[in-house]
């Protein structure tokens, strides 16, 4: 998939700052590179299951217009006792497919950062409620950690353990690609269909 280039020669990135409006989300298209800034919340298997079963958000967490990052970071306390994220790439998103749309709708979440894409239920939910799937580079834990400016808070650390906790992160120009948009397009579905056709010819 071709990318637009900026004058500097780098791939042109659309700036996205949380909280994000529905209008901003609806303007995003599959294949577009984005640079995300503002507060995002990590949330993965345990959090999604908990919220889907009717669990309440901890006080201080506001997901309205926000982004959930499918990520279990490595976080250590520095010498001053402050949390510091030392590795933070995305985890595989498809595991949240049963829960994602309902949680996005219920809490007003506008975007999800993850890897590997999600399925038809989430794609339909993105179209209906105005949401988007943002693909970060899987495994690029160091590059992505450099875009995390600060850890504001952590919730459910005791209950779920560090990788599964909700980490409230301030991100700065965090790079991702729109691979599922609010117009019914999924790059994952398109590549899967095209690759299956080539595979069938080569069997």
């Amino acid at each position, binding site marked *: 998939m071709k990318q637009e280039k900026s004058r500097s020669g780098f791939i042109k990135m659309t700036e996205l700052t949380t909280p994000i409006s529905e209008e901003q989300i609806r303007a995003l298209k599959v294949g577009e590179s984005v640079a995300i800034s503002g507060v995002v919340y990590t949330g993965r298997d345990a959090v999604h299951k908990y919220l889907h079963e009717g669990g309440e958000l901890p006080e201080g967490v506001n997901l309205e217009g926000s982004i959930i990052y499918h990520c279990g970071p490595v976080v250590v306390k520095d010498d001053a006792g402050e949390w510091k994220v030392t590795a933070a790439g995305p985890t595989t998103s498809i595991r949240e497919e049963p829960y994602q749309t309902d949680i996005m709708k219920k809490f007003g979440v506008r975007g999800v950062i993850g890897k590997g894409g999600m399925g038809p239920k989430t794609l339909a939910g993105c179209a209906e409620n105005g949401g988007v799937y943002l693909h970060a580079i899987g495994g690029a834990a160091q590059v992505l950690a450099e875009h995390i400016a600060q850890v504001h808070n952590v919730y459910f650390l005791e209950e779920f353990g560090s*990788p599964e906790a909700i980490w409230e992160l301030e991100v700065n120009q965090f790079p991702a690609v729109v691979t599922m948009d609010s117009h019914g397009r999924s790059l994952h579905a398109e590549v899967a269909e095209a690759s299956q056709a080539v595979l069938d010819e080569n069997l």
Partner: protein
Amino acid sequence: MDSLFESLIEIIRRTSAEIPDDVQRAILAALENEKQDTIAKNAMEIIERNIALAKEKSQPLCQDTGSVLFYVDCPVGYDQMEFADTARAAVTEATTRGFLRQNSVDSLTGKNDGTNIGPGAPTFHFHQTRKANVTVRLVLKGGGCENVGAQYSLPNTKLNANRDLDGCRKVILDAVQQAQGKGCGPGILGVCIGGDRATGYELSKTQFLRNLDDENENAELAALETDIHNTANKLGIGPMGFGGNTTLLGVKIRAANRVPASYFVSVSYMCWAFRRHGAVLNEAGEITEWLY
């Protein structure tokens, strides 16, 4: 055993933070091979930058520091239990130092006590040798790529795969197609043809100990490895499943005997963040040589 303790921490650190040379060469070739101004090229550029950054900062290449798999060749009479105790302590210390994520969860209670120690964690595979030295190889295998591994029982009607090498080829390529996007490609396949269900998977993982540049001693399997590698890279799945030229960085296959009734093909998938190192230790437990 103090030297062994420190040596094992160093092996863990290096495995977590530094990609082996053979894998790095394959990644650089893949980067060159993607078209300019594509999201696939951009993904490979970020991956290249990530490799350099992890090494420079001595921090985990990927936040999922994975299942901790030790492969230990040791002389007859070597105290394996003492090694395992020392290795468990080294794993916990490496976790405290941030080389490993708190990554081990009690499957029944859901509790993560942060030590990375528990039933089956870490995993040890001891093999006796007649050499005097101890060789320790370590693989850190992330969950994303582990989840896309697959085991096929032939014949497979849906894939029209019979009990022959062409049938193996069909199911292995199906595994590549199914894994797309989810396993952090471009990936590496480790495959075992035959064995029972448990040893099939086990032996498929030992293929990750092979150097990517080596050549299979079995000519038929060498040809199958090349064929699957080339065919997979025609599929257009590309890095991260974004579409592109490099879907796999390598394919390694071995065979094991089977019982007449069973014909398993076990496929393990390794992400681009292929963490594998190894070292030879002297009797004092000090590292005398790195293997990769």
